[in-house]
């Protein structure tokens, strides 16, 4: 799919970078951030956010340049990670920026919430069941003398 702000090739590169920020979990329960489709969400956000468009654009340019003619996809995961760290040195703030954006989107996604053992929904309006308070826990405290200081009016 061609996005308004990134062509297919750049979108695929961004997805690969996001999969590096949050890769699929080793047990296969949690998808990578790119696999989750977050590149499309970020690209859509770039249309209305000049700072984001500039940062991601500069970051992708740098990654393409550093990857050389074979491209980012040809590198193994550890080489990709090194390359992204290098890109972060040359485009200061690139990784923290991407990480912040990716974390906020990734951990709102229902598929991720389910993988974390949470209900795939916002907290309201259903909420969560909890056991009522167990007063027996307080037995040691109930046996204590008063803790507050007496003032001149009795209590």
């Amino acid at each position, binding site marked *: 799919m061609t996005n308004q702000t990134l062509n297919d090739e750049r979108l695929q590169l961004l997805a690969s970078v996001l999969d*590096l*920020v*949050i*890769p699929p*979990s*080793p047990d296969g329960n*949690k998808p990578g951030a790119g696999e989750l489709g977050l590149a499309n969400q970020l690209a859509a956000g770039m249309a209305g956010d000049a700072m984001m468009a500039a940062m991601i654009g500069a970051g992708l340019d740098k990654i393409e340049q550093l990857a050389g003619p074979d491209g980012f996809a040809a590198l193994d*995961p550890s080489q990709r*990670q090194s390359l992204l760290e290098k890109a972060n040195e040359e485009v200061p703030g690139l*990784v*923290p920026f991407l*990480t*912040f954006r990716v*974390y*906020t989107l*990734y*951990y*709102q996604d*229902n598929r*991720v*919430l389910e993988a*974390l*053992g*949470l209900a795939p929904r*916002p*907290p*309201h*309006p*259903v*909420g*969560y*069941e*909890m*056991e*009522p*308070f*167990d*007063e027996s*826990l*307080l037995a*040691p*405290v*109930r046996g*204590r*003398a*008063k*803790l*507050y*200081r*007496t*003032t*001149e*009016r*009795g*209590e």
Partner: protein
Amino acid sequence: MPEAPVDVLIIGAGASGAAIAWSLAETKMNILCLEQGDWVKSTDYPGIGADWELRQFGDFGLSPNGRGRSEDYPVNDDESPIQASMFNAVGGSTILYAGHFPRFHPSDFRVRALDGVADDWPIDYDLLAPYYEENERMMGVSGLAGDPAYPQPKKPPLPPLPLGKLGNTLAAGFNQLGWHWWPSDSAIASQPYEGRDGCINAGTCLVGCPQGAKASTDVTYWPLAIRQGVRIKTRCRVREITVGDNGLADGVVYFDEDGNEQKQKAEVVIVACNGIGTPRLLLNSKSKQFPDGLANRSGMVGKNLMFHPYGLVRGVFPERLEGYKGATGCVIMSQEFYETDPARDFVRGYSFEMLRGMGPVFTALSGMSTGDVDWGADHHRTYDEFFDRTAGMVVICEDLPEACNTVTLDPQRTDSNGMPAAKITYRLSDNSRKMLDHAIERAKEVLHAAGATRTTTEAPLQVAGWHLMGTARMGRDPETSVVNEWGRAHDVRNLFIVDGSVFVTSAAVNPTNTIQSLALYVADTMKKNLANLFD
């Protein structure tokens, strides 16, 4: 066209403005409240959306400086290690508060007599006790009778909120050390109450409660006050309180929702704008009679700003705690170290309050800022070590008044109507630092006793300036205080102040219950003295 004069004009529709409006409503006086914010609809709250955690950093953030709402006014906190927090709406900061609702201790009103510091209040616990009880009934407080930290009887109207696995784990730690703890007195309905739904344990309290279980005053006092004829005009920001030739307040000048300047005359003016908003307004209300600001002949308006210095300690546990369930801040409270102990190197004391865990987004962002959660190949392992495995506790230290801690008018910054912003100048006292150090070590101790494998600490907690007190303090001496023992300005006999500004000292607990109980007491005293209110 200007509105006809009213009998009582209340400025601010938050915790105390709502309480005094409700109490005075039975007099059938013509009562109007001007509020710079608006009503918050239940559908406005973040908790119904997937992005609810993120909005804590946006339009429902704690600091007015970062929210980008036109109804907020800037607070210059460059010269303070603690940032001011507040919310401007019908309900005020009760919209975002955790709902912790403890009372002061009797000793909190007698710090000079007992400990030789600060000043005693001109009122005491026994005088306030019936108003605490009334306020707890009106707000719908959940809790449990029998707490040895308080004089009895003290019986919250609703049963306590559930502790959950996280709360039970922490309670076991306190029991192991033999320390006091008790289920929090919480202004959150544990079951349906007076037309409000009960808490569904959604854990979004700090960004408002779409359920209406949390007792923000837009769902407690205000509906009842309005039913009795009190009126609220929202999006109206008061610029100054005006004074007649007789030296009495005669009304206000305010900006309406379109930014047009309006005047409202009144027989009585009640200020309920919080410990920063109230001195800001009084200092901006200069006149020939009051060149240094209204009701400021003592020079005490804006002085003695108190926060509660907070420390945050989080424990990391080996097992999951279901910390995303339940009221965010209202779990258990400990007052083991509340009263002065001569063996310590500080006077007065502090409370512990337990916190729920962090949500999935906040876990990631918090771990990113502390370096505990990695990006890349190790992300899931490091994330999983934290997610739903942390339990936090805050320590709330009593802050003592110091004249050097101030609210003033900012010489440069203004709000959206051109009114000077508030500027706070604040430093932590030596006593507060020693108290924080002591409290942090005890917090680590109890978290480890509860099973934490490691702890993280932030003290003082920068974002924790949500208790704003002391800047128009109460006292019998007009030379050293702004209002008398029932909230009436010494200098202006028809001007009353009912928010946290009037606090003489801060205690070591959340102030809202005391703020509102004081407002009910002031209202009662006004009603008893209606015939000679200005004598």
